[in-house]
């Protein structure tokens, strides 16, 4: 392609617009070159005209014919032909420089000049080089067409003049016919390279034009972007200012003081409300420590030191810290405030935001409410005091005897009065509880202490109605609660249970751990509450329908009060019951994590219990009751498994729930027996009876009957696990050697001994200590055993003490009788083995327990 080659592809341009532009630039450039070159030629023509004229004059000024001379024709040729040749081109250069016509005309003209100059020089070969020079000049146009035209004219000129005027072109008379061709070949040769040069040049020009177009385009783009970005920036600046203004407005007009506090506790910013509340201008408080404005946070004085603690607490919490406190306004005026603190981290800058609210009004309102309750309570109670007092005295006979009917009426009035008093108490309590205004005095207490208290309160009532109160499994997990209030709740539940219990019924109390809380349960065996009645229970003034008069003593608010108390402790309350199936009222008190009771090393150490159980019911029971972190429970299904487990670690307690003991079971029992002899454990509990001979000692208890009664199982296990595996025994023996031996022997079995060397000492010890059993030597120095026993009989608290009479000689029947109080066993020192001794003690203790139970049951 001889046309100036386009760039590799149109795609090289970044866009059609750029391409267009680059083409435009290119064309412009080319046009400029044309114009410039046209102008150049314009001058060249003039130069050539003048030059050739002078050259002609110099070289051949005159032509001689004889002696006549006239101006040589060359001179005329130069001037005239030169003028003719120049005329059109110069005109065109002047009129329309840059056009193709102009160029071509110039090309033709220039080659004619070459011809002319050759002619003027008479065809001298040196002037032929003007042709090549002209071509080179014409190449300045960078337009190959021009070269074609020029080459064609030259060829023609050589050809024609070669034929018709060879002297003017070749300087010879006759020219070779092919000479024009030879010359033309050189011209073509020259053209070839000139055209290549033009191509390269044009390509470079195009590239530059393209680059320029691209650059322009880029520059445009950048400018556009800058404008756009600037506009955006302005917009966002505006938005920012607006938003800042909004926040500022909120900050300043908030109803509470907003203060930001730097890490070191100094005040950084404060809003107008703060200035108003405290009566200080901002510049006065800026930079001062926050304790300048706040006297007290919570119950603590706010100082530079105590502030650090609050600050750190804030940092850790996710939600704001909200407390009441006391603010300090101008003039040392104290204001009751509510302050909430939150931590802010702004790119490394740590601040505390404090929002302070003046709660003087609220406090005043609270005080008024509190005063109202006080007054109402007082105003209601005062006349009731007179009524109750008067009726009480009359009823009590302090005014003399009354006719029966009068007494009855007074009785009615007094009872109603009591009821009214209870009602007022309940209503006021309930109102306070519900309003959250009740002041609780919470402290740490264990469930067993709490249940103990409630039991004490309700024992009398239970006894009156022949109802038995039983304490079931009680966890030692302490809780934080208002003792009096929870007691109130429990007493309420227990009283209800008693009221609704059938004759000789049992009310069972328990406290177990369930899901991060302690769950208290009061269970009765009454007629239960049907499902559709249950939802009304805890509402106010509800009495479960009853035809029995005595069940209408309540105020109807008891359960509502229980509910309010429990809920104020963060717990829940409910009932599990159905018609004729008794009722279990339960409530939970949450335990804050971290407070969980961990048995210490010595105190009831986590007992390791192995249960051998071929049926699964016992396992469930134990899981439910033993989970309270006291026991690590391992459940195995037969004695073989048990042996393996026991071999790894000796348990504290083994529970045998096997209906038909087989070889393996008996073997295990042997193993347990020997273990006990060495380790003082395990204690073994059986669910079926065994004869003494088989049982490994010490056996704590036997559950004789199936189905196994849950309460008894639990109680016995608790006892076994709780280790008063440490019964206390009083050893009364004068001989120190014997005494020491006895103590040592008993000690091996985990029995704690109190020692007395004589009867008096023994009695003294009994006055202050409570041993469960007395081991008595008959032959004592100061008073003999018989007298000792007599003295024991006299002491009411010692009457039930089991006695192990341990003598050096066999006793007669009569002697035995004299030595008996309650349960008594007799052993002869030399004849009884250690095993017998301990078994006997155990047996006695057990007998006592059984009897105590029997008494309670009756």
């Amino acid at each position, binding site marked *: 392609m001889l046309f100036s080659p386009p760039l590799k592809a149109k795609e090289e341009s970044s866009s059609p617009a750029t391409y267009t532009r680059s083409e435009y630039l290119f064309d412009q450039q080319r046009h400029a070159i044309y114009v410039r070159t046209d102008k150049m030629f314009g001058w060249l023509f003039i130069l050539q005209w003048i030059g050739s004229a002078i050259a002609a004059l110099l070289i051949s000024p005159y032509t001689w014919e004889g002696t006549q001379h006239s101006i040589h024709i060359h001179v005329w040729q130069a001037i005239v032909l030169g003028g003719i040749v120049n005329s059109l081109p110069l005109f065109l250069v002047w009129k329309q420089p840059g056009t193709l016509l102009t160029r071509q005309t110039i090309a033709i003209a220039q080659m004619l000049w070459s011809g002319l100059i050759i002619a003027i020089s008479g065809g001298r070969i040196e002037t032929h080089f003007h042709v090549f020079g002209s071509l080179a000049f014409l190449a300045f146009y960078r337009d190959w067409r021009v070269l074609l035209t020029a080459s064609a004219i030259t060829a023609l000129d050589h050809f024609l003049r070669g034929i018709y005027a060879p002297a003017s072109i070749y300087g010879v008379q006759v020219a070779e016919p092919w000479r024009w061709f030879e010359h033309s070949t050189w011209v073509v040769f020259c053209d070839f390279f000139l055209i290549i040069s033009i191509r390269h040049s044009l390509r470079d020009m195009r590239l530059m034009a393209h680059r320029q177009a691209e650059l322009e385009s880029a520059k445009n783009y950048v400018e556009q972007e800058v404008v756009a970005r600037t506009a955006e920036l302005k917009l966002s600046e505006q938005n920012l200012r607006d938003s800042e203004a909004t926040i500022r407005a909120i900050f300043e007009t908030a109803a509470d003081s907003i203060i930001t506090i730097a890490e070191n506790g100094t005040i950084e910013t404060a809003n107008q409300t703060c200035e108003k509340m405290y009566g200080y201008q901002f510049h006065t408080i800026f930079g001062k420590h926050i304790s300048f404005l706040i006297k007290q946070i919570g119950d603590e004085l706010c100082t530079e030191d105590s502030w650090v603690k609050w600050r750190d607490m804030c940092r850790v919490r996710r939600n704001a810290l909200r407390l009441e406190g006391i603010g300090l306004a101008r003039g040392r005026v104290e204001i009751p405030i509510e302050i909430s603190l939150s931590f802010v981290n702004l790119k490394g800058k740590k601040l505390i935001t404090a929002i302070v609210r003046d709660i003087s009004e609220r406090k005043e309102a609270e005080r008024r409410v509190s005063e109202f309750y006080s007054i109402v309570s007082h105003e209601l109670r*005062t006349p009731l*005091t007179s009524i109750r*007092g008067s009726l009480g005295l009359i009823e009590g006979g302090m005014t003399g005897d009354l006719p029966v009917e009068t007494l009855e009426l007074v009785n009615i009035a007094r009872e109603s009065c009591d009821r009214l008093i209870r009602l007022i108490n309940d209503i006021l309590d309930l109102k306070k509880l519900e309003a959250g205004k009740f002041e609780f005095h919470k402290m740490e207490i264990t469930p067993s202490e709490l249940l103990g208290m409630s039991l004490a309160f309700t024992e009398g009532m239970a006894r009156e109605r022949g109802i038995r109160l039983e304490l079931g499994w009680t966890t030692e997990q302490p809780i934080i609660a208002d003792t009096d209030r929870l007691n109130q709740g429990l007493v309420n539940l227990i009283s209800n249970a008693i009221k609704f219990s059938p004759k000789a019924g049992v009310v069972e109390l328990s406290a177990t751990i369930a899901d991060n809380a302690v769950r208290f349960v009061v269970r009765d065996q009454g007629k239960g509450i049907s499902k559709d009645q249950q939802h009304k229970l805890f509402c106010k003034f509800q009495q479960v329908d009853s035809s029995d008069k005595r069940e209408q003593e309540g105020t109807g608010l008891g359960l509502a009060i229980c509910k309010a108390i429990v809920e104020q402790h963060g717990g829940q309350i409910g009932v599990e019951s159905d018609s004729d199936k008794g009722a279990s009222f339960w409530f939970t008190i949450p335990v804050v994590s971290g407070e969980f009771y961990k048995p210490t090393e010595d105190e009831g150490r986590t007992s390791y219990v192995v249960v051998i159980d071929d049926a699964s019911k016992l396992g469930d029971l134990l899981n439910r009751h033993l989970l309270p972190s006291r026991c690590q429970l391992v459940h195995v299904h037969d004695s073989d498994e048990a042996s393996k487990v026991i071999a790894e670690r000796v348990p504290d307690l083994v529970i045998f729930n096997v209906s038909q003991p087989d070889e393996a079971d008996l073997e295990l029992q042997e193993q347990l027996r020997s273990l006990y002899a060495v380790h003082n454990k395990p204690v073994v509990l059986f669910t079926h009876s065994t004869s003494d001979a088989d049982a490994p000692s010490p056996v704590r208890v036997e559950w004789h009957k199936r189905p196994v009664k849950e309460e008894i199982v639990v109680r016995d296990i608790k006892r076994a696990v709780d280790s008063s595996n440490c019964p206390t025994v009083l050893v009364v023996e004068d001989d120190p050697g014997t005494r020491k031996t006895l103590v040592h022997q008993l000690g091996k079995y985990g029995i704690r001994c109190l020692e007395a060397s004589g009867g008096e000492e023994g009695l003294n010890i009994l006055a202050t200590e409570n041993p469960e059993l007395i081991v008595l030597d008959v032959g004592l120095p100061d008073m003999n055993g018989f007298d000792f026993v007599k003295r024991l009989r006299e002491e009411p608290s010692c009457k039930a003490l089991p006695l192990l009479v341990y003598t050096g000689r066999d006793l007669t029947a009569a002697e035995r009788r004299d030595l008996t109080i309650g349960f008594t066993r007799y052993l002869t020192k030399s004849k009884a083995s250690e095993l017998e001794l301990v078994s006997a003690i155990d047996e006695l203790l057990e007998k006592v327990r059984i009897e105590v139970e029997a008494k309670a049951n009756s």
Partner: protein
Amino acid sequence: MSIEKVLLVDDDPRIRKIAQISLQGVGGWNVRAVSSGFEALEAASSDRPDVILLDVMMPEMDGPTTLARLRENAELASIPVIFFTAKVQKQEVDSYLALGAAGIISKPFDPMKLPGEIEEILRASNN
């Protein structure tokens, strides 16, 4: 310590009457009833009772103030004082005890049991 003389202080004549019958009739004690704190101070001085039953809400000089005055007097300071009041919220109870009262008996009370309660309080405070 057995009680023989009781000083009863209450501005309400009805309650005075009832309490008096109760303490005399049921308790079998010698009762002097006065109606104000001022009288109480005089009576305490002249009679030296074994126990003072003191109402809280009285005009002019209330119970706690009377107690404070009694305590100021070295001779009278040792006489046990039991507050007698319808206001029995826990925090009030604590504050009364803090003032040096031996105990509180709340109103309304059971007139048949009043002497027993007084004895109980004195027994407990002696331990």
